[in-house]
C-alpha cells in the first residue's frame, strides 16, 4: 500500500531524511523507531503529502503520490505529532468538519461521527472546546479525526506520547483492532510498544534507516537475547561460574546478586547460540540447587542502543 524509495529531505543544511526505502502492506503495522530528531516525523509528513521530498518517490496504493495527492490523501488517515486541532472547536464540531471535508453528508456523516466518538470514547467531552480538554482527550480527538473515514492507510506520529498507562493500553488495543485490513505506520520512542502492536520494526537514526525487520529479529540484536538467568539456592558462585564458563557457546557469566542464602547469575551466549538447554543439563549433572532459570528474549532498549550507538560512532569516524 505504501512504498517509498530513496526518500530524502533536506532542510537547508540538515539532511533530516537520508535515502530511506521501505514498503508497508495491508495487514502490517510498521513501528518506526528512532531517537529524537531522527527524521521520523519528517518521513511521515512526506508520506502524507504535507512536505515534498527533496529526492526519491512515494507510491500510495500503486500510484505516485505526486501525480495525484488528493487521491492519496483520501486513502490516508493521519495523526500528526502532538495531535493538532482547532482549539475553539468542540470534538463534535471538529469531527463534523473533518467528515464534511472527507465527503460525507447527511445520515452517513452523523453515523460516522457517532461511531467514531463511541470508538475512541469521546462521549463525555463531545461538547467541550478542545482547548479545555486534557492531553489524553486531545489525543483521542486526533485519533478520531484520523480514523473517521476508515482509511486503508493509517499514519500516526507518536500516538501514545504523553498518555497515562491505561490510555496507552487503550490506544494500542484500538490499533490492534484496526490492523487486520489496513497498512499502518506508527512512530514511537517507547520500545515496549513494539512487541504488542507492531508486525515490523524500522529503526532510523540521523535520517538513515538502520534496520527493517521483525520485532523478534530486532530483539535478537540485543546482547541479552537468549541470555540465561540462573538463580541458585547456595552462596559462593565461584565454582559454578567456572563450570559455566567452560560450557560451549557461553560468552561470559555475570553475577547479578549474591548473599548468604543464594546467588543469581546471568550467562550470556555467544552471538547466535542457544544455551538454555546446555545450562539446564549442566545444573542437573552437577546437582546445583536451582531455584530459578529464565531465558531472556532480549531487551528492546538494549537492541536499540546497540544499533543506534554503533551507527553514531561510525558516523563520527
Amino acid at each position, binding site marked *: 500500500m505504501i512504498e517509498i524509495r530513496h526518500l530524502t529531505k533536506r532542510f537547508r543544511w540538515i539532511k533530516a531524511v537520508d535515502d530511506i526505502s521501505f514498503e508497508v502492506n495491508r495487514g502490517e503495522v510498521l513501528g518506526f523507531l528512532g531517537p529524537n530528531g531522527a527524521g521520523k516525523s519528517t518521513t511521515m509528513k512526506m508520506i502524507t503529502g*504535507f512536505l*515534498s521530498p527533496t529526492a526519491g518517490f512515494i507510491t500510495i496504493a500503486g500510484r505516485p503520490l505526486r501525480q495525484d495527492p488528493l487521491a492519496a490523501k483520501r486513502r490516508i488517515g*493521519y495523526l500528526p505529532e502532538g495531535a493538532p486541532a482547532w482549539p*475553539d472547536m468542540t470534538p463534535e464540531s471538529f469531527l463534523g468538519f473533518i467528515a464534511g*471535508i*472527507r465527503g460525507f453528508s447527511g445520515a452517513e456523516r452523523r453515523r460516522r461521527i457517532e461511531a467514531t466518538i463511541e470508538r475512541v470514547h469521546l462521549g463525555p467531552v463531545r461538547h467541550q472546546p478542545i482547548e479545555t480538554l486534557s492531553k489524553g482527550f486531545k489525543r483521542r480527538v486526533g485519533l478520531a479525526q484520523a480514523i473517521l473515514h476508515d482509511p486503508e492507510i493509517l499514519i500516526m506520529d507518536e500516538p501514545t506520547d504523553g498518555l497515562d498507562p491505561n490510555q496507552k493500553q487503550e490506544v494500542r488495543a484500538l490499533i490492534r483492532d484496526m490492523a487486520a485490513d489496513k497498512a499502518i505506520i506508527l512512530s514511537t520512542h517507547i520500545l515496549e510498544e513494539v512487541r504488542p502492536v507492531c508486525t515490523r520494526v524500522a529503526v532510523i537514526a540521523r535520517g538513515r534507516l538502520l534496520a527493517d525487520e521483525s520485532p523478534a529479529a530486532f530483539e535478537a540484536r540485543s546482547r541479552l537475547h537468549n541470555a540465561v538467568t540462573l538463580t541458585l539456592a547456595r552462596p559462593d558462585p565461584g565454582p559454578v561460574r567456572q563450570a559455566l564458563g567452560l560450557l560451549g557457546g557461553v560468552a561470559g557469566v555475570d553475577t547479578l546478586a549474591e548473599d548468604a542464602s543464594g546467588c543469581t547469575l546471568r550467562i550470556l551466549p555467544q552471538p547466535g547460540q542457544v544455551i538454555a538447554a546446555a545450562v539446564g543439563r549442566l545444573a542437573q549433572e552437577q546437582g546445583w540447587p536451582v531455584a530459578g532459570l529464565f531465558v531472556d528474549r532480549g531487551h528492546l532498549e538494549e537492541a536499540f542502543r546497540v544499533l543506534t550507538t554503533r551507527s553514531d560512532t561510525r558516523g563520527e569516524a
Partner: protein
Amino acid sequence: MLRNIRMIFRREMGGYFATPIAYVFLVIFLFLSGIFTFYVGNFFEREQADLYAFFSHHPWLYLFLIPALTMRLWAEERKTGSIELLFTLPLRPVEAVLGKFLAAWCFTALALALTFPLWLMVASLGQPDHGVILASYIGSLFLAGGFLAIGSCLSALTRNQVIAFVLAATVGLGFILSGHAMVLDFFSGWAPTLVVDTIASFSFLTHFEAITKGVIDLADVIYFGSLMAFWLFANVVVLDSRGGD
C-alpha cells in the same frame, strides 16, 4: 470544490464567534466608526445629510483593523500545527484560501452592516442621496476585500502574528498612500503625468473615492476584483511553495 470552500467558510465563521474576536472586533469597529464620523469627520458641523464623514475615513480604519483580523488567518495555523492537519486532508490550498477569505469578508460585511443606524440617522435629519450611500457601502466592502486579500497572503508568510500584522499594515499603507495628495504632489512637480496617473491608479483612495461619489464604474470594480484575485493567487502560491515551512 464549492463544498470544501463552504466547509472551510463555516469553520472559520464558527471560529470568529466561538472566541471573543468577533465581539471585540465588532465593538471596536463601531466605536471607531463613531469617533471618525462625529469627532474627526465633524459630521454635525458639515450640516449635510450625507455619510461622507463616515466613509472617507474607512481606508484608515481598515488600515489597522483588517490586519488585526487577517494576521491570524495562516500564521496561527502554522503556529499551532493545524496547517498540517488542513493540508493532509483531501483539500486544495485554493479552497482553503477562498473559504477563509470569504469568511473574513462576510464578517467585515457584518461589521459594516451594523453601522446602519448612521444611515437611519441621516435619513431622519435630512434628505440624503440613498444611491450614494448604497454605492459607498459597496465601495467600502470592496476596499475591505482588498485589505483582506493582502493581509491573508502576508499572513501565510510567517508563523508570527505580529509580523503578519506589520507586513499587512505596511503594504496596506502603500496602497493608500499611492493616491494620497501628499504623495501625488511630490511626484506631479517633476514626473510625467502618465507616471503620476499610474501611481494614482494603483491606489485604494482613488478608486474608493470614485465609488463613494455614487458612481460604481466598471473600471473601479475591475480594479478591486483583480487586486483581490492577485493577492489570493499569491496566497495560494505561498502556501504551495512553503508548505510546512
